C-alpha cells in the first residue's frame, strides 16, 4: 500500500490527511508546535501511522508524496520576524520601498503609522547606475561601487540582501552583474534580485516583492532544510512538495529560489480543494470560505480554475506575484462583541485569538466572542466540542454576554447572542460579496463550499443573505486545506515586460519571450521536478488594456494563439473580457490596444489520490438522531427544539430536513428552516434551499 499525505500547519493545529492507494482516507488534527513546527509535523505522521494500524517505519517508507502548506513566510511578515534585510538600489531611489507611494490607508486617523520597512533606511544602499525606459544604459554599473556596501552589510551582520534597479524589467544586465558580485562576496548570506523574483514593469511593486522575498528567504530556507533533514532521519524516501500562494506545488529547491511564493501557502489550498469537490457535484464554479479563530477567508473558482490576482498585500506589504485571489476579513470564532459610542453592537475585527480565546473555553477570556454566542444559541454542544475534548462553560459565556453587552443594549443575553450571530454573518456575507459581486460574479450561480469547524454554523444565514441556493460541507471540512494540498498541480509562473502598442508589436520578439519562458518552465518541471513531458500544460496570459487606460486586464489565451500570433482572436477575447468585468467594451469605436506584460503559467499535473466513496442507498436519517436540543432559528427569531444528528454515522444517501443540527467530532452544521440536507457517498453534507433546489440535481451513484 502507498500513501499520499497533506499537512497544513496552522497557529493552533496541524491538520493532516492521508489517502491510501485504495482510496482510504484518514483525517487527523494534532497540536502545532510553534517553537519548531517540524516537531508537530513528525508527530502528526506518527499519529496517523498509528491510526492506519502500521508501524511508523513501514508507514513512512510507504509514503509516496507529502504536500505541505507552511505559514513560516506568512508569520514572518505578520510578526515582522524575518531576516535582517538590506536593499541595493539605483541612486536617487533609496526610499521607494518605505514610501509605499505615499499611502495612508486610514485617512482620518492621525495615530495611524506607516509599516516598518522590510529593509530599514540605513540598510538601503544606492549605486550610481542607470538604465532608461527603453533599456539603454545611461550610467554604467561599476562593481567597485559595491565594495563599501559589502563592508557595511558585513559590519551590520545583515542576513539577507535584495537588489532592485530602475527599469531592470527592460534590461537586467546591471542587476545580474550586481547579483553575481554580491553572491561571490557575501558567502552564506541570502541574496536575490528583482529580475529573478518579478521581472515586470512597476518599480514599487517589484522592489516591494523582492524585499519580501529577501525578508522571508533565509527563514523559509532554514525551515525547509530542517524539515528535509528530519524527513531524511526518519528515512522518508518519497517526494516533499510545498504549496505556493498560486495554488500549485513545487519542490523545496524551487521555493528557496523565490521564497515569496509561499506567503499564502496555507489558505491557497482551500480553493484548490474547492475546485475538486465542486466537480464531483457537477459544478464548474464555486466559492470557498474558511472560518478560523480570527479570520474568514473567501476565494473563488471559475471554470474549475482557481482565480489568481497580482494585487495582493500582506500586513500592508505589497506582493505582486500571482497569488490566489483570497479576501480575508476579521471575522472568526474569536471575534469579540463590543458596543460603539453610538450604542450599536459590533463584531470584530479584534479577536480573542487562541489565547485567552472565547470566554467559554475557560482559559481566562473575559470578552464575549462569536463562539460564546454560538454556544448560547445552541449551535455548539458544551459537552461535545472537539468530540468532548474541550468542555465549554456556558454559564460564564452567558454571564459575559449579559454583563458586557446585553445590559448596555437593554436586551436579554439570548437576544444579544442572536444579534452577535446576525452581525457576524452579515460581515462574512460582505466578504463573500467582495470576492464575487465586486469581481463581477453573481454568487447565486456558485456552489458555496464551507471549510473550518465553525463555518457551517453560519453558512445557512450567509447563503440566505446572498441568495445562494446550495452549500456543501465537505466530509473533510475541518482539514479542508490539507486535503487541497493533495490536489494541487506543479505550477510555475513566469513574466516578461513588453510594453508596446499592438500596432508596433514585434512578432519575433513576442514569440521569443513566450518560448524563453516555456524553456525555463520545462527545465524546472522536467529536469528538476521529474514531470513527464506529456503531463505539461501551458497557460499564456497577456496583460493588456485600451490605450489611455491605467489598469490592465490579465487576459488568458491559448499557447496556439500566442505562438501562431493570432492577434485578431486575442483582441476579440479582450473586448469580451473587458465587457464582462466593467460592463462595456470599445470594440466598435476601434480603440487601440496596448500590451504591458506577457506571462506564462506552466503546469505539470500530479497524480491525484482517489477519495473513496460508498454507494448511496435510500436510507433514513432517523437512526442518526442522538438528541433534541434548543437552538436559535434565525428566520423565526426564536429558540426551538430541533433534532441533532450524529454526522459521523454512515447515513450515505439520507435526506435530513431543516431546521436541525448535524454534529461531527470536528464540525457542527446548522441547517436552518429554509434548507434541507443530503448526505453524499463520501459523507459530505449538501445543504439546499427548500424552495429553489437546483432542478435536475441528484447525487451521483458510484461508477
Amino acid at each position, binding site marked *: 500500500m502507498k500513501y499520499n499525505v497533506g499537512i497544513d500547519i496552522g497557529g493552533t493545529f496541524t491538520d493532516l490527511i492521508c489517502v491510501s492507494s485504495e482510496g482510504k482516507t484518514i483525517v487527523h488534527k494534532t497540536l502545532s508546535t510553534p517553537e519548531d513546527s517540524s516537531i508537530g509535523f513528525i508527530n502528526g505522521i506518527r499519529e496517523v501511522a498509528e491510526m492506519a494500524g502500521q508501524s511508523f517505519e513501514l508507514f513512512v517508507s510507504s509514503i509516496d508524496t507529502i504536500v505541505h502548506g507552511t505559514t513560516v513566510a506568512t508569520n514572518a511578515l505578520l510578526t515582522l520576524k524575518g531576516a535582517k534585510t538590506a536593499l541595493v538600489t539605483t*541612486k*536617487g*531611489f*533609496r*526610499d*521607494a520601498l*518605505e*514610501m509605499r*507611494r*505615499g*499611502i*495612508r490607508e*486610514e*485617512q*482620518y*486617523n*492621525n*495615530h*495611524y*503609522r*506607516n509599516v516598518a520597512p522590510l529593509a*530599514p*533606511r*540605513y540598510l538601503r544602499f544606492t549605486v550610481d547606475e542607470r538604465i532608461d*525606459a*527603453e533599456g539603454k544604459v545611461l550610467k554604467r554599473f561599476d562593481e567597485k561601487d559595491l565594495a563599501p556596501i559589502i563592508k557595511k552589510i558585513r559590519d551590520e551582520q545583515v542576513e539577507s540582501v535584495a537588489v532592485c534597479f*530602475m*527599469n531592470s*524589467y527592460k534590461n537586467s544586465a546591471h542587476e545580474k552583474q550586481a547579483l553575481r558580485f554580491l553572491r561571490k562576496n557575501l558567502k552564506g548570506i541570502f541574496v536575490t534580485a528583482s529580475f529573478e523574483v518579478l521581472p515586470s*514593469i*512597476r*518599480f*514599487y511593486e517589484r522592489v516591494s516583492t523582492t524585499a519580501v522575498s529577501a525578508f522571508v528567504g533565509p527563514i523559509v530556507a532554514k525551515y525547509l532544510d530542517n524539515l528535509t533533514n528530519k524527513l531524511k532521519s526518519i528515512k522518508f524516501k518519497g517526494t516533499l512538495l510545498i504549496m505556493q500562494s498560486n495554488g500549485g506545488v513545487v519542490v523545496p529547491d524551487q521555493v528557496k529560489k523565490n521564497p515569496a511564493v509561499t506567503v499564502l501557502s496555507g489558505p491557497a489550498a482551500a480553493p484548490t480543494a474547492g475546485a475538486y469537490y465542486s466537480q464531483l457535484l457537477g459544478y464548474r464554479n464555486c466559492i470557498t470560505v474558511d472560518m478560523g479563530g480570527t479570520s474568514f477567508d473567501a476565494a473563488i473558482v471559475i471554470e474549475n480554475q482557481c482565480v489568481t490576482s497580482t494585487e495582493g498585500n500582506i500586513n500592508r506589504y505589497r506582493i505582486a506575484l500571482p497569488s490566489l485571489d483570497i479576501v480575508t476579513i476579521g471575522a472568526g470564532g474569536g471575534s469579540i462583541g463590543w458596543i*460603539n*459610542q*453610538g*450604542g*450599536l*453592537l459590533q463584531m470584530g475585527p479584534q479577536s480573542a485569538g487562541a489565547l485567552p480565546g472565547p470566554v467559554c473555553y475557560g482559559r481566562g477570556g473575559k470578552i464575549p466572542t462569536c463562539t460564546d454566542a454560538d454556544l448560547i444559541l445552541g449551535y455548539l454542544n458544551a459537552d461535545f466540542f472537539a468530540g468532548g475534548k474541550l468542555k465549554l462553560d456556558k454559564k460564564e459565556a452567558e454571564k459575559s454576554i449579559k454583563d458586557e453587552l446585553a445590559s448596555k*443594549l437593554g*436586551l436579554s443575553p439570548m437576544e444579544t447572542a*442572536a*444579534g452577535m450571530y*446576525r*452581525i457576524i454573518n*452579515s*460581515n462574512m456575507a*460582505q466578504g463573500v*460579496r467582495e470576492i464575487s*459581486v*465586486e469581481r463581477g460574479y453573481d454568487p447565486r450561480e456558485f456552489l458555496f463550499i464551507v471549510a473550518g469547524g465553525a463555518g457551517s454554523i453560519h453558512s445557512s444565514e450567509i447563503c440566505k443573505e446572498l441568495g445562494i441556493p446550495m452549500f456543501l460541507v465537505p466530509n473533510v471540512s475541518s482539514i479542508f486545506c490539507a486535503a487541497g494540498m493533495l490536489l494541487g498541480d506543479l505550477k510555475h509562473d513566469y513574466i516578461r515586460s513588453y*510594453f508596446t*502598442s499592438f500596432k508596433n508589436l514585434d512578432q519575433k520578439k513576442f514569440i521569443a519571450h513566450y518560448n524563453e519562458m516555456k524553456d525555463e518552465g520545462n527545465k524546472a518541471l522536467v529536469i528538476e521536478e521529474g514531470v513527464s513531458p506529456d503531463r505539461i500544460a501551458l497557460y499564456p496570459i497577456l496583460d493588456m488594456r485600451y490605450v489611455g*487606460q*491605467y*489598469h490592465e486586464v490579465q487576459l488568458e489565451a491559448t499557447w496556439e494563439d500566442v505562438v501562431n500570433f493570432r492577434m485578431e482572436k486575442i483582441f476579440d477575447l479582450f473586448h469580451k473580457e473587458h465587457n464582462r*468585468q*466593467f*460592463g*462595456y467594451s470599445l470594440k466598435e469605436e476601434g480603440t487601440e490596444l496596448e500590451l504591458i506584460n506577457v506571462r506564462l503559467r506552466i503546469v505539470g499535473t500530479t497524480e491525484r489520490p482517489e477519495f473513496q466513496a460508498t454507494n448511496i442507498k435510500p436510507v433514513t436519517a432517523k437512526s442518526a438522531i442522538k438528541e433534541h436540543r434548543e437552538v436559535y432559528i434565525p428566520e423565526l427569531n426564536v429558540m426551538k427544539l430541533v433534532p441533532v444528528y450524529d454526522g459521523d454515522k454512515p447515513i450515505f444517501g439520507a435526506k435530513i430536513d431543516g431546521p436541525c443540527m448535524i454534529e461531527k467530532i470536528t464540525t457542527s452544521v446548522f441547517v436552518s428552516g429554509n434548507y434541507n440536507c443530503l448526505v453524499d457517498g463520501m459523507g459530505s453534507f449538501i445543504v439546499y434551499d427548500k424552495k429553489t433546489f437546483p432542478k435536475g440535481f441528484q447525487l451521483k451513484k458510484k461508477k
Partner: protein
Amino acid sequence: MKIDKILVSIFQRAFKSITDEMSISLTKTTRSPILCEAKDFVTGLYDASGQMLEQTENLPILSFSLGPVCKVIIAQYGNDIHEGDVIIHNDVFSMGNQNNDVAIFKPIFYKNTLVGWAAAKGHQADIGGAVQGGYNPNATEVWQEALRIPAVKLYEKGNFRKDVWNLIFANIRLQMVQEDIKAQIGACTLGERRLKAFVEKYGQETFDSHKQALFDSTEKMMRSEISNIPNGVYEGKSMVYYDGKHKGSKFQIHAIITVKKEDIIFDFSKSSPQTKGFVNGIYTSTCSAITLTFLQMVNPNIPHNEGMIKPLKYIVPEGTILNASYPAATTFGNHLCPQVADSIFKALGPAVPERITAGWNHLLCSLFTGLHPRTGKKYVDICFLGLKGGSGAMKGDDGYDHIGMIDASGGVLDQDYEMYEQQTPHLILQHEYLCDSGGAGQWRGGLGTVTQILLRGGDTTMVVFGDGDVEPNYGLFGGKGSVLNKIELKYPKNYQGGKKLIPMSKDMVHGIPDGTKYYQVAGGGGGYGNPKKRDKLVVATDLKNEVISKEAAKNIYGLKMK
C-alpha cells in the same frame, strides 16, 4: 415602529458596502490618472430628502458637497424626478465645490416612490474654460475657468438626451472626460440596484425608521465626541500667500470656534475678503475642509452619514476668501484646505492639545503638458510624486512621511516611476526623503521629499499652483516648523544662459526646453513638543537612518555624541 438595534448595525454595514462597491467600479473603469491612479473622486448614497446615508471618500475635500447638491436638485426639480433620470452638476454657485469636480446623481425608486439617490463625483481632466485642466492662474471670473453646469438631466425617464450631452461635451477638450462620465453613471447604476434591492428586502417602513435610528445613533457618537472638548470660544489664524495677480499679496483665514456642550460652531466671518484672482474658496469646499479636519480629531470609526455632520454648524459668509460671490474665479478653493485646517488646529490646540497635529505641509504642485516624442501624443501629468510632504506630529506620534496635503491625507498616490518614464518623456533623477525636513520635536513631523526630474521632449508647459513657499509651517508646544516648499527649473546651458527660474506659487511657464532640470522640495510636517525630550534611542535611529543630520541630532535634539 420598534427599532431592531441589530438591524441598524446591519444597515450601516450594507450602505458602506454599496458605496465601496461603487468606488471600486470607478477606480477600474476610469481613464484619467487623476481618477484611476490618484482616486480624486467620491461615491455616496443619500435618502429621498438628500440626507447622507454613507460615502466612500477617497479624497475627502470634494466629499461633503454631494449632500448639499442633492438638496439643490430636489428643490429644483420638485415633482419632476423620475425613475431612469440621470442628472449632472458642477456649478460652484449652486453648492458645487470646484468646477472640475463633476457630479452625477441618479434617483432611486421603490414602488414608484423616491427612496434615495446614488451619486458619484470626480475631478475631470478638463472642464472647458481658458486653460486645459482647469487651473488658470489668470482667471478672474468663472467663465475663464470652466463650463458651468447647473443641474441638468442627461437621461430623462431612461431616455438619453443626446442634445444635452453634445452641448456639454462640445465645450470640453478631451474625449476621455466623456468616458469618465459614463463610468460615473455606471457606478451610480450599481448603487441604485443595490439600494433598491435593500429597500425591497426590508420594506419602506423599516428602511425609513432604521435609517433614522442610524442617523440618531451616529449623531449621538459625534455629540459625545464634541462634549469631550471643554466649552469655550477658540480662535485660530493662518495665512494664504499670493492670489496669482498681486505679488506679495496675503490673506487671512480666521477661525472662531464655539463649543457649547454637544454643539460646535465654526465661524470664519472674520477671514479676508475674496481675492481678485482664482484663490477663492466656495461654501461647500470650505465646509468640506472644516469637516475633514474635525474628523481627524475624533474617533475615526464614526460612520459617515447625516448624523455625523448634524452637530456641526458652519458660518462662512459670502464675499470672504472662503466663500466668494458670483461670478468669482474659485478653482484654487480646494487648496485653501491646508490653511483652514491650520486655523482649526491652532484654535482648538489649547482646549484639546492631545487631539491636534502640528502644521501639515501645504500643497505646492506642478502640472506638465507636452508632446511625447516616443508616442507622438500629447500627455498631461500632475506631478503627484513630487508634491507630497509630511504631516504634522501629534502627542504620542510622529507625523506621517510623504503623505501629501491634508485634503487627501494619504489618499493620493505617487505615480510608479517606471510607468511615469513610459508615459512621459522625462527621466526621474531623484525621489527621496529630505534629511532634516521633518519639523523637530519630541514627536517629529513627517518627512518631506526632494524630487529631481530631467525634463525631456522639449516645448514643455508647466502650470504651478499651491502655497507653502513663504511661511514655514509651525510646530507646537516647543516643536519646530519644517522647511519651505520649493520648485525650481534649471535650464540647459544653451538656453537663456542656463539660468535658474523659480516660478511663483501660481504660475505658468511655456516652452521649457529639453534638458531642463526640475527640482522640487515638498516640506515636512511640524514637530510637537520639545525636541530635547525626544527619546534618545529614536533620535539615534533617525540619525542612523540619515533622516536627521548630525548637527540636528546634536544641537536640536541634544544627542550626546562621541
